[in-house]
């Protein structure tokens, strides 16, 4: 049995039961919901998972639910299922990050492939998110001066230049730099730059910007 959650939301009870059953038969822990509202009340926003979603539903429809999940920064990856080849709907869904868009009736392999892809995608998202979280924690442990040094270092500035900018002795900057490397658990300067990029800080400043 796979550990990841698979959610199925479809307003058609027959389809809902059948799709859930199919996913069960392949070892997925699938939970059925007949309305988006029920799903929203119960889903796990933190863990990796997959949502198999009917695009056309009364009330909150599939696309609206997708927007809601994006807003909530859910880690789930979405697989849409639709009664007809609704081209504008599918384009919108894919643009907003859906993993796949299946037209009913679909083959089991199509569905399972899409669910597997979605779970992989979701796992990646989770990992990334976990990494970022870790990096953020490390970054938070830096002192104010160390954060300043960090920003300058990832911009590729030499110690001398940093010292001048910060109005400190070069020796002091060196010490700060070593502490940053240690606290951020960076093996090399390149490693540190990658971390900064992932956190979205210290982008290279264009000359003359200041």
């Amino acid at each position, binding site marked *: 049995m796979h550990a990841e959650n698979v959610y199925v939301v479809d*307003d*058609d009870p*027959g*389809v809902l*039961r*059948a*799709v859930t*059953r*199919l996913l*069960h*038969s*392949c070892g997925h822990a699938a939970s059925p919901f007949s309305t988006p509202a029920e799903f929203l009340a119960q889903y796990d926003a933190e863990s990796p998972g997959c949502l198999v979603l009917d695009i*056309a*539903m*009364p*009330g909150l*429809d599939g696309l609206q639910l997708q927007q809601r999940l994006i807003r909530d920064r859910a880690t789930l990856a979405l697989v849409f*299922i*639709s*009664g*007809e080849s*609704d081209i504008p709907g599918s384009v919108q869904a894919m643009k907003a990050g859906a993993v796949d868009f299946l037209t*009913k*009736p*679909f*083959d*089991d392999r199509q*569905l399972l492939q899409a669910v597997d892809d979605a779970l992989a995608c979701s796992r990646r998202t989770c990992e990334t998110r976990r990494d970022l979280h870790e990096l953020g924690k490390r970054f938070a442990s830096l002192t104010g001066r160390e954060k300043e040094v960090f920003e300058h270092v990832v911009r590729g500035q030499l110690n001398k230049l940093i010292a001048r900018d910060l109005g400190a002795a070069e020796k002091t900057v060196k010490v700060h730099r070593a502490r940053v490397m240690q606290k951020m658990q960076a093996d090399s300067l390149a490693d540190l730059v990658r971390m900064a990029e992932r956190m979205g800080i210290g982008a290279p400043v264009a000359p003359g910007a200041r």
Partner: protein
Amino acid sequence: MNDSSKATAASEFVSRLDDRSARLFLVAGVVAIAYYSGANVGFALTFAPHPTSVVWPPNALLLAAILLLPPRFWWLPIVAALPAHLLVELRSGVPLTMVLGWFVSNCTEALIGATCIRQVLREEPLRFDSFRHVCIFLVCAVLVAPLLSTFLDSLLVTAIGWGHAGFWDLVRTRFLSSALASLIIVPLVVSWTQGGIQGNWQSLRTAATRRQVEVSAIFLGLIVTCLVIFEQSPDSAAMPALLYAPLPFLLWSAVRLGPQGISASLLAVASLAIWGALHELGPFIAGSPAQDTRSVQLFLIAVAVPMLLFVAVMTERKETRRALQLSEERSLKVFRSSPDPIVIARKSDLVIADVNDKWEAMFGYRRAEAIGRTTVELGIYANPGDRKTYVDLCERGLVRDFATDMRDRHGQIHHMIMSGDSVEIGGVECLITIARDVTRQRLMEREAQEQRVELMHLSRVAMLGELSGALAHQLNQPLTAILSNAQAAQRLLARDRIEAQDLREILQDIVSEDKRAGDVIRRLRALFKKGETQLQKLDANELVREVLSLVHGSLTSRYIRVAIDLSTLPVFVRGDRVQLQQVLLNLVSNAGEAMEAPGSVRLLTVKTAPNTDERVQIIVTDGGPGVPDSIMARLFDPFFTTKPQGLGLGLSISRSIIAAHGGELLVRNNPGGGATFRIMLPIQQ
């Protein structure tokens, strides 16, 4: 008004005045001359020593003139007669007081007679072809007026002391003389002047030669007979019996020539009889002049009174018979040449008594073949049960528009509508039936009905074409469920991890989903089918559920929410399931399209409710932009459409379907946006 027209009006007035006064002068002149001549005749017909004549025409002439004039001109004959009276009487050396006295009594007689007759008859002119009129005339003008005036006259004569006769003698002679004059003269003048003297002459002259010969023969015979009888020497032995000799001619005249003929005949008889008697000839010469006078008078009165009554009766009978004949002829013509077949049958055994020409033509049997047989023997009724129903209905009274099929001689079937009633003909209870062939009409109705069905079907198919995407979706759902269920089972079986219970559930789901797909297809097929209208009791709630189940997918794929509010009270209607579904489908799919417009609230409400007025309502409300006022009035017009690919038949046909169900299809815009279509159908208990 300008001068010339004023002048014209004035000259017209003068000419009219002239015309009227000229006519008055003419009347006055005629009366004066007649009076003068009449008096002379009266004198001539007087037995010399006797003061009163056998017949005294002036009074009768005055009466006739007054009867012919309206009361406001009654003074005219009297004024006109005065100079004539004076002229005649003064010449014969009678004292002036006596002359004036006679004039007064003469005028009194005429006025009494005319007033009495007018009192009884009112505005009606006196006619001698009416028995009642003749009776009135006899009482008023022959009995009462002469009697009253005679007393006055005799009193005057006695008072003045003119002549030597006693009072009662005077009364007797004067009365008989006046009465006879009235009997002979008034009918003559009145019957010949009515319709114009000229006109009467004209009709006699232009009459067929046979009639002219007949008239001549009557008068010739009458005159010859009278000459023979009344101008013979009085001592002939067979005299009394010969008195009856003119009678055949008088009867002939009465029967054939009417009041005009008899009055002329009586004049002839009277003239000749009196003339003969005056010359001491004929059967009345017996003794004194007074006796002779009375004898002539009584004879003539005795002849004239029954003759006048007889002619009135004869003419009336003739008239009645003619009218009856005319009406019979008309009825027969109407019966024979009626454009609809008519059959008359005896009620007791339903044997045909008569048929008309159209019946013969339609059923191919001749009258002679039909009469004496029954419609059963002829095999007219295509369904003999109808005949019994029809006859039973006729027993209860008038039957209108009884529809049945009939077979003619050649086996051709006619659709007929019959009306029947019981009538008595010649004392026999009969059933008269008027039928109408409505075969062509029926055929046209059926064609129109077929075309309507065709059109309904076409618009339904067109609508289903538009809905095909939605319908595919509707099939997709169960197909998806079936496929996924089957593949789940396959996977479980492949891993050998399946429990019997799971498999049972899966199969159960597959079966029910397959049935669901089958339902969709069956409903679609019903809508695609072109069929005769089949009326049955239907649940409005079920209609709504069925239609929404067909379009549910189409609506949800357009993100339209459907709110169904079905009545908990019974909402049964009588109608054709497919047609009513078509209407609902049309309304719902229109609503769906309307809500594609930007700014729409995507909510479709379908509601059923029993109405207060014995009707069921099905209400379809959308959240679209509503129907623009500019097209509201044309919304139900055929071929009116706002869709690029639309036929413009949907709503037009929907309304005609609902109308054919005895209901109404209404539309209005909601205050908060969107439109509401309301189907109202008679409730079925």
